[in-house]
């Protein structure tokens, strides 16, 4: 027998000192949150930033302006259902829309690697133009930098957007209240799995397409259906880190618990299959055309019906309820009737998916 059976209930503490950035810092999970908490927030702190929503809310000359930025480093640049160009427009449009804003203007910054094919750049730019036109936003300013071969990965895009928030609309991740219903706009995991299948050369009977889409019309429909009330608490697009990270962030910021029902969460068969095969949980896989809506219980059915009338919300479902157990706790009632924790991703589930 090894002598390590000696029973001592003390663990040593070789805590992992992170003196370098690791990929998990970009995963949208717990490491990303640590990076914000330990590096950026103490230095940049101000009342607008400290609200920690997906967009800053600014009062300028009587108007309420939503302001947000996002960078896109996805590989491959072209994937089933989209490309980095349309994704860069949809991502920023959606961050504005989740604040209840009508998206108006975008900037586009390109970091290009020496040797990048001009033809690919044209395709990406034209895809951006199409996506912007469809979303009703103008790309009004931009920047281009070129780095030496080997110092970039083909192409990175940053987009920044501004939009106007209609009077009376106040959405925030800190507003969820016990009793609120959680509505999910459609099946989850499509984007992350589409990227992974393309990257790893995995093929299924049905091709899995990214759900990359602009959700401003869906948001407008939600707001219209609740006109004049404060019954819409918060909207969030569950991108990096998936539904689990979005729910955990909202639970923490609102100081509430959230319970979801496994049987109510829509997941496509082919996505479930891919997740089984790859050992992934769809709750942690990225989406680029889905949203979570936290709404007052009395309007939930009405909002759900309004969402289902929009093409991007046709498969919307109520997946859970906000509670007042321990603040920040997200749980799921499984199909088996047991309850388990839905935790935030600790590190990296997939490298660079958006």
């Amino acid at each position, binding site marked *: 027998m090894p002598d390590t*059976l000696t029973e001592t209930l003390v663990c040593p503490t070789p805590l992992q000192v992170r003196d370098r950035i690791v990929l998990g810092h970009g995963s949208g999970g717990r490491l990303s949150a640590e990076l914000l908490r330990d590096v950026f927030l103490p230095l940049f702190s101000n009342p607008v930033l400290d609200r920690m929503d997906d967009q800053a809310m600014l009062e300028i000359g009587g108007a309420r302006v939503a302001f947000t930025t996002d960078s896109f480093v996805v590989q491959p640049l072209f994937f089933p259902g989209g490309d980095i160009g349309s994704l860069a427009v949809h991502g920023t449009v959606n961050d504005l829309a989740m604040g209840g804003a009508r998206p108006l203007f975008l900037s586009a910054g390109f970091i290009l690697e020496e040797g990048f094919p001009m033809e690919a750049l044209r395709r990406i730019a034209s895809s951006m133009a199409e996506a912007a036109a469809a979303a009703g936003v103008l790309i009004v300013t931009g920047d281009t930098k070129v780095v030496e071969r080997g110092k970039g990965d083909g192409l990175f895009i940053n987009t920044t957007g501004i939009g106007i928030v209609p009077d009376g609309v106040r959405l925030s991740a800190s507003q969820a209240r016990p009793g609120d219903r959680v509505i999910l706009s459609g099946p989850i995991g499509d984007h992350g799995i589409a990227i992974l299948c393309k990257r790893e050369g995995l093929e299924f009977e049905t091709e899995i397409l990214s759900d990359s889409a602009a959700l401003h019309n869906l948001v407008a429909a939600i707001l219209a259906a609740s006109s004049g009330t404060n019954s819409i608490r918060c909207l969030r697009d569950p991108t990096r880190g998936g539904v689990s990270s979005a729910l955990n962030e909202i639970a923490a910021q609102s100081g509430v618990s959230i319970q979801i029902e496994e049987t109510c969460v829509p997941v496509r068969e082919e996505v479930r299959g891919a997740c089984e095969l790859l050992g992934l949980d769809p709750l942690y896989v990225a989406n680029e055309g889905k949203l979570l809506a936290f709404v007052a219980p009395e309007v939930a059915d009405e909002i759900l019906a309004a969402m289902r009338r929009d093409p991007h919300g046709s498969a919307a479902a109520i997946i859970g309820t906000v509670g007042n157990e321990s603040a920040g706790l997200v749980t799921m009632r499984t199909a088996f009737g047991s309850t*388990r924790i839905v935790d935030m991703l600790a590190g990296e589930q997939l490298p660079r998916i958006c």
Partner: protein
Amino acid sequence: MKYVDEYRDPKIAQAVAAEIARTVTRPWVLMEVCGGQTHTLMRYGIDELLPPEIELVHGPGCPVCVTPLEMVDRAIRIASLPGVIFTSYGDMLRVPGSESDLFQAKARGADVRVVYSPMDALHIARVNPDRKVVFFGVGFETTAPANGMAVWQAKREGLTNFSMLVSHVLVPPAMRLILNSPANRVQGFIAPGHVCTVMGYREYEELVSEFHVPMVVGGFEPLDLLEAISMLVSQLEEGRAEVENQYARSVNQEGNLPAQNILREVFQVSDRQWRGIGPIAESGYRLRQEYADFDAERIFGVEDWHAEEPKECISALVLQGLKKPLDCPAFGKRCTPMTPLGAPMVSAEGACAAYYQYRRHAHA
């Protein structure tokens, strides 16, 4: 999803659980050997469906968890050498060695790549003839055949820039260690279905006849595990001790003979260090002399690289089913998946990580 949902039917699960409750007359302690089974039990809350007489304890069958500290240190050492491409399954990258992990080595400039198969590593070696490509060969009898095949293939092709850091361990010696322990509480085992798919279950029959303890080869879906538990309880209540095969859709007595052939061709049984447990005689594989040219430990001279395992962590007790993760005062406080103090918190299949991920509210 066809062929999966059938094994996750809540109504059938409740029926099987009710059957177990009708059969059981006194307390029994059962161990599921494999980490994948632990994960399913926690994820579906199967222990909550069982009558209070049944106690499940979690076994040592998580390959990431039992890979010794010094092997992770050797991996980091090799990965950090110039000209090396170090390839590994993804979950080994987060496993802390003495001071660092492979993710941090990568952040410091090491060329560390996640692959889904050792064959991907072979491919990387073929297309990078000027680089030395190393694959981290970790796991039980389940992953060993594919790794053996990669080495066999490399030799056949005459690839001189491919090697493997071998850290393979075997299930039966670990079960023997548990059964030999004077502190052992386990009265019945769910034997690991995927290991038995490769190896068959003759070795488990030997253990049963030696220790008179019932075993059921079990699968990985919720109904597989419930049925395996039901079969174990029946054996225990009737006073039988034999090997039964619940996972017959994948496992037969002989196992996968071509896979066993490649294991015999490439590997030989050797002593191995187990993280959290210590050295166990003849409990793993190393490459045979004929394949020494593919042995990364030899090529990079890291064989004598040793590390002291911290003795204080209770993972040894957890991995042998003597303690539950929630019994550890550091659990969920100083020890989390972000800051793992011991092996079972590192991998998603580790018992502590499974408890942390699915169950810590019960603790709070």
